[in-house]
């Protein structure tokens, strides 16, 4: 008997990625995934227009910049409306390799778990040292505050089953969203796995001003604590 193929949706949060967004989309399509949702988070460049001109892409736009977490949430809500069975979140700066998507969704397709977290830290080749340290600090505080240890709590490459996206409720707007997902996995007792992913640290992705800096890291930590006490 023929089994129904799950509907996989790629959610790409993007902010000022006009230079690269079409390449990212094309790269994903080349790997056989055509359901793509790009959410432009109030970019000042032509990210939205470029994504919207690509055939088959659902391009959405926040009129105001609301942050990474709010943008991913919009994409996930759109995927729900489009009856997605599996949702994969994928960074818009080209750092993730679409060749990893099939491996990421495989445990969900096989009903082994509800969430697969892409982890950059199982193979750190090519990753700048300060990023390794920063990610480990993020992992430590995620464990300290939410009681669950993962090897890459700040990774933006994740896959969720329909069950998971229905259960996960987040309110974080910015980068603390990543840790909130880990908290939700624990609270909602979702089964998760970690899968090694390749990372392409290009001059473009490393040069972006809005990426996690030390100051942003402190803000993220403050927000994580604040969300616990407020």
């Amino acid at each position, binding site marked *: 008997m023929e089994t129904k193929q799950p509907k996989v949706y790629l959610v790409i949060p993007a902010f000022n990625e006009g230079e690269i967004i079409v390449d990212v989309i094309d790269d994903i399509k080349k790997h056989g995934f055509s359901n793509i949702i790009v959410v432009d988070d109030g970019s000042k460049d032509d990210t939205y227009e470029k994504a919207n001109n690509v055939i088959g892409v659902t391009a959405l736009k926040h*009129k105001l910049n609301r942050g990474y977490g709010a943008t991913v*949430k*919009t994409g996930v809500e759109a995927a729900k409306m489009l009856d997605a069975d599996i949702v994969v979140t994928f960074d818009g700066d080209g750092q993730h390799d679409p060749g990893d998507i099939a491996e990421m969704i495989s445990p969900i397709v096989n009903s082994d778990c509800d969430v697969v977290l892409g982890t950059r830290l199982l193979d750190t080749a090519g990753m700048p040292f300060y990023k390794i340290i920063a990610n480990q600090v993020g992992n430590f505080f995620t464990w300290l505050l939410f009681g669950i240890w993962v090897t890459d709590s700040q990774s933006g490459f994740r896959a969720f089953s329909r069950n998971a996206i229905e259960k996960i409720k987040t309110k974080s707007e910015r980068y603390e969203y990543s840790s909130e997902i880990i908290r939700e996995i624990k609270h909602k007792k979702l089964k998760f796995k970690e899968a090694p992913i390749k990372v392409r640290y290009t001059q473009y992705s490393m040069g972006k001003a809005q990426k996690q800096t030390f100051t942003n890291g402190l803000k993220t930590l403050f927000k994580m604590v604040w969300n616990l006490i407020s």
Partner: protein
Amino acid sequence: MIFGLQLYQIIIAALSAVMIYKGMAEYIRREAGQTLLKLLVRLVVWGGMGAVVVFPSITNIFARVIGIEGNVNAAILTGFLLIFLIIFKMFSAIEKLEQNISMLARNDALKNVPRENNSNKQ
């Protein structure tokens, strides 16, 4: 010195009275955003400030009640607590506003989600 009060005492007491009057008037008129909690906070903060300025000796009673030696220490500690509470309240309000803005931005963006994926887009 007027009526046994220093000038700074008169100014702060008058300011406290004006702020309490405004708060009560706004609450009675049921202006937008005026809650009983807000009125109570205003009464405690401005009323407390006015009372301490006009009757400094009440800080001794206050110090005994909360168990801190020295009325000035008790007043400073209480001040810190109140400021902390106010900041907490402000952060909560800002957070709520931020979430509401995100929700509006999201709802607006989601209006463009097609009923079926727009694979026929030219």
